[in-house]
């Protein structure tokens, strides 16, 4: 009998029933208010533990996921159920065999096994344990310290440290990827010649999280500067001095820094986190463009891609420079158990829901969940089931949209178990929500009851604090949106979900669902994670049923769009249409179209591009023909085109023509500084010009005044609370009715989407074209070299003091709150630190929210070092 046959026989026949019963009992311990099917079972005597554990240790040798999962189920049951101390010890040994040291440590912390496990083992077991622990460790060359790792982490480390120039690693969410990559990054930077490293993450939220983690990992090390701001000063101090620099950026920020530095930008190491995002509509192209841009300038650069559970991590290595050694590391091994549970109402009993665990093709029953109230309507169903089943806390409720998240959280907060708290950290967060957003912002009273909601456009300081308190267990229920799968590192104990959609309305694809489900089960904090799927047979909620486990297929957005060749070709040929308002399918084709046009202009044909090998010669010829026609119109120089990824050269050219035809005073084409009295009007006009010539960005046209207003207020450095207050006053002055929660959410989304995304992208393109025109018209005197509108908008700052505060690592919210108290507008970093040192003792008297005070003291090094940030994933 071959090993795999033995493993299949063990899991499929010999121990199938035992493992199922074991699983039913272990999963039931996770769920509150459950009438479990084996309620009275006595785990100690109803299983042959010796046999099970022996089977487990055999299965641990398998490389197949199902076998490893069975071994993990046995080990978890042995450790967590009421078994004898010997069985629990053996369960812990089995966990170690699975390289799952973190779960063993958890078992010790939870008093499931006594400390000093090794001392209780026989000599040969002890030798084996030592050997294993040695194998499962990595030496940090820079410090001589050893860190414990699992198989995947060890492979990743070896791959990254090998001669491979480009590496792509993929593993399920809770495999400790990010933790290891950060450790490796710092070790590598310290011990190699690498001077400049760039860490790319897809969202600002993740960027700040990574920045914070890196700073904590090298607290005492002053030789490495870590920043998330595109500052040339940091760059030059490491290229010319002894320091090394790690930049943590979104793809847009990387472009900003390269724009400032031009061709000279040199990078030794590039890490791309959540690299599967290269397939994102819109921003995927900007990511790809950023990687290609720095790789063109630095052909010898080392690149590491990291992605969660992908089918084909090697795909990302395809465009590596020729001769570059490549390697990919891929695992699918579970680190925590993930239970997918189906919840269906018991006929005629709306307060009773039967729960079944997905197990191959035939679900196994777990028991009946009892709700305390009748769940009328879908939101109540979601809220009540979450509240009933997830009473142990760490419960995420997946909602379709921000409004639903707010409603569901409100419902949960009224149920038993969500009493008002006197916890200072929760009260501080509530205070920040009231002062930082609005005194009636719904988040505040919910947080006071240990319940919260979470969505993309929230100010980052509030959102990260929600995440932190959720990790700490103080927030017990969190209603969240698809922002969670768009790059927030947050794991939980239980996820409750019904008919999940991604973004606005599209049903979630299986790999997205599994990316979400992957967050259930925090490795090292929980033994199991649960995904409760409500109404699994409802076709509206689940058009293809609850998706089967699936890994993410990496597919570049560019490749996807190129494969709709005919439509894309038609779009390109039609791009210079008379009225841009009539341009159709821009959502699909504009970004990739711009990318292809720039590629064509650079190379003269798409056949010479790195992606050419993935498409047929016919396709490339066809697109070349379309591009030839429109590229003939363009005489904007390449250095300008490359600065604006995703902005069509056709649009830029058209804007230039519009400037050339302009008959009025040339000065009327300029923007005004945000403090200037005519700033608002100038922004209105510039946005109109952008809509008419570049691309219809600020929509609908009738809302341009509002877009302009928010952008100007943002640039002025107004706080979100002030922007919201002004909108409310405006509505009241004009006798317009409004709903407060909607107004708050809309304002947040306008700040994030218009002021922080569209405006920097398109207004900085406008300014570059204007600069070309002014040079052409011999009016260089009108060019303001010192002011970079892209950076000013990205950070929402207009004064040196504000930017310096953010350079220190403060969130904008804190920086703005402090700036209200600081008189001078020209303080550099040292000046700001000096101000904080001087005024820090009086913060209490300034009515600043505690969280802002804490963040300020933290970045300035005046705080209590014990108040650390817990690292997840």
């Amino acid at each position, binding site marked *: 009998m071959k090993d795999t046959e033995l493993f299949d026989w063990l899991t499929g026949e010999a121990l199938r029933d035992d493992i199922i019963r074991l699983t039913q009992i272990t999963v039931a311990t996770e769920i509150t208010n459950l009438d479990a099917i084996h309620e009275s079972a006595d785990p100690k005597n109803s299983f042959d533990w010796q046999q099970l554990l022996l089977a487990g240790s055999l299965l641990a040798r398998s490389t197949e996921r199902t076998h490893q999962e069975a071994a993990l189920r046995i080990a978890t049951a042995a450790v967590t159920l009421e078994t004898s101390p010997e069985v629990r010890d053996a369960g812990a040994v089995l966990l170690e065999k699975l390289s799952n040291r973190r779960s063993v440590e958890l078992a010790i912390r939870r008093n499931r096994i006594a400390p000093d496990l090794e001392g209780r083992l026989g000599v040969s077991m002890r030798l084996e344990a030592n050997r294993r622990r040695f194998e499962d460790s990595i030496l940090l060359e820079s410090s001589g310290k050893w860190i414990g790792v699992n198989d995947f982490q060890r492979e990743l480390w070896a791959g990254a440290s090998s001669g491979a120039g480009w590496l792509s690693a993929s593993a399920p969410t809770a495999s400790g990827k990010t933790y290891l990559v950060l450790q490796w990054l710092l070790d590598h930077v310290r011990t190699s010649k690498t001077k400049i490293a760039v860490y790319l993450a897809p969202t600002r939220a993740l960027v700040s999280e990574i920045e914070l983690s890196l700073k904590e990992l090298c607290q005492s090390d002053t030789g490495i500067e870590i920043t998330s701001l595109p500052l040339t000063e940091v760059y030059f101090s490491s290229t010319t001095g002894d320091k090394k620099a790690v930049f943590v950026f979104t793809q847009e920020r990387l472009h900003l820094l390269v724009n400032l530095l031009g061709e000279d930008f040199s990078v030794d190491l590039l890490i791309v986190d959540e690299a599967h995002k290269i397939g994102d509509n819109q921003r995927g192209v900007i990511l790809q463009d950023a990687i290609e841009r720095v790789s063109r300038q630095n052909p010898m650069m080392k690149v590491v891609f990291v992605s969660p559970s992908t089918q084909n991590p090697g795909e990302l290595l395809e465009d590596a420079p020729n001769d570059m050694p490549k390697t990919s590391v891929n695992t699918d091994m579970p680190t925590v158990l993930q239970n997918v549970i189906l919840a269906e109402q018991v006929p005629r009993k709306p307060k009773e829901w039967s729960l079944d665990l997905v197990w191959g093709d035939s679900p196994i029953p777990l028991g009946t969940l009892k709700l305390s109230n009748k769940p009328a309507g879908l939101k109540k169903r979601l809220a009540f089931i979450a509240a009933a089943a997830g009473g142990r806390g760490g419960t995420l409720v997946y909602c379709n949209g921000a409004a639903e998240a707010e409603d569901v959280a409100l419902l949960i907060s009224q149920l038993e178990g969500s009493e008002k708290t006197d916890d200072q950290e929760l009260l501080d967060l509530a205070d920040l929500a009231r002062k930082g957003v609005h005194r009636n912002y719904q988040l505040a009273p919910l947080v006071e009851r240990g319940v919260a909601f979470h969505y993309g456009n929230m100010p980052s300081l509030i959102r990260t604090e929600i995440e932190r308190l959720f990790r700490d267990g103080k927030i017990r229920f969190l209603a969240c949106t698809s922002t969670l799968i768009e790059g927030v590192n947050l794991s939980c104990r239980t996820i409750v979900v019904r008919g999940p959609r991604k973004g606005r309305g599209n049903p979630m694809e299986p790999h997205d669902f599994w990316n979400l489900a992957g967050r259930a089960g925090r490795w090292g904090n929980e033994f199991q994670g649960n995904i409760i799927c409500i109404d699994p047979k409802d076709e509206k909620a689940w058009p293809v049923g609850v998706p089967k486990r699936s890994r993410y297929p990496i597919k570049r957005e560019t490749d996807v769009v190129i494969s709709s060749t005919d439509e894309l070709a038609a779009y390109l040929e039609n791009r210079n249409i008379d009225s841009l308002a009539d341009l159709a399918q821009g959502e699909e084709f504009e970004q990739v179209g711009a990318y292809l046009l720039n590629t064509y202009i650079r190379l003269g044909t798409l056949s010479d591009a790195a992606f050419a090998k993935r498409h047929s010669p016919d396709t490339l010829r066809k697109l070349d023909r379309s591009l030839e026609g429109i590229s003939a119109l363009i005489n904007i120089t390449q250095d300008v085109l490359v600065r604006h990824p995703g902005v069509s050269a056709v649009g830029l050219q058209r804007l230039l023509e519009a400037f050339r035809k302009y008959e009025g005073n040339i000065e*009327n084409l300029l923007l005004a500084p945000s403090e200037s*009295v005519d700033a*608002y*009007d100038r922004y*209105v006009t510039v946005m109109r010009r952008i809509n008419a010539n570049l691309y219809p960005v600020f929509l609908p046209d009738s809302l341009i005044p509002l877009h302009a207003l928010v952008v100007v207020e943002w640039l002025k450095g107004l706080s979100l609370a002030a922007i919201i207050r002004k909108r409310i006053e405006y509505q009241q002055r004009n006798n317009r009715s409004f709903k407060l929660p909607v107004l708050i959410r809309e304002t947040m989304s306008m700040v994030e989407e218009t002021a922080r995304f569209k405006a920097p992208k398109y207004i900085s393109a406008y300014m570059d074209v204007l600069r070309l025109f002014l040079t052409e018209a011999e009016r260089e005197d009108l060019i303001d070299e010192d002011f970079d509108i892209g950076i000013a908008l990205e950070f929402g700052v207009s004064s040196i003091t504000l930017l310096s505060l953010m350079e220190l690592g403060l969130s904008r919210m804190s920086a703005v709150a402090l700036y209200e108290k600081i008189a001078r507008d020209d303080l550099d970093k040292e000046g700001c630190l000096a101000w904080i040192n001087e005024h820090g003792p009086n913060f209490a008297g300034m009515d600043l929210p505690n969280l802002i005070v804490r963040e300020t003291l933290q970045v300035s090094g005046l705080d209590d070092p014990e108040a650390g940030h817990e690292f997840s994933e």
Partner: protein
Amino acid sequence: MPAKPVEIGSLSFARKGDANDFFRDMLYKYELGDKVTSKDAEILTHLMHMHPEATEKIGPGIESFSVRTADYGTRCFWVNRVDGTTEKFSFRACY
């Protein structure tokens, strides 16, 4: 009663309505935030001096005129003074 003619600098309008049309056209030929041309500025300077609160509006002196919004809705002429301050005015108030 015959309509009263309006004289502004060298311009002459048979009736108030004609002057209104003229200035409304001028106002709307610009984009928001624009400074007006020197030719239009000359006419507006004459107009400005006819304003009942001319002295207050002109203050230390006229630098230029702009077209901007008033209270984020309506469009209006603004006088930009030499000291950097600015104030809106209604052309209708001037005649």
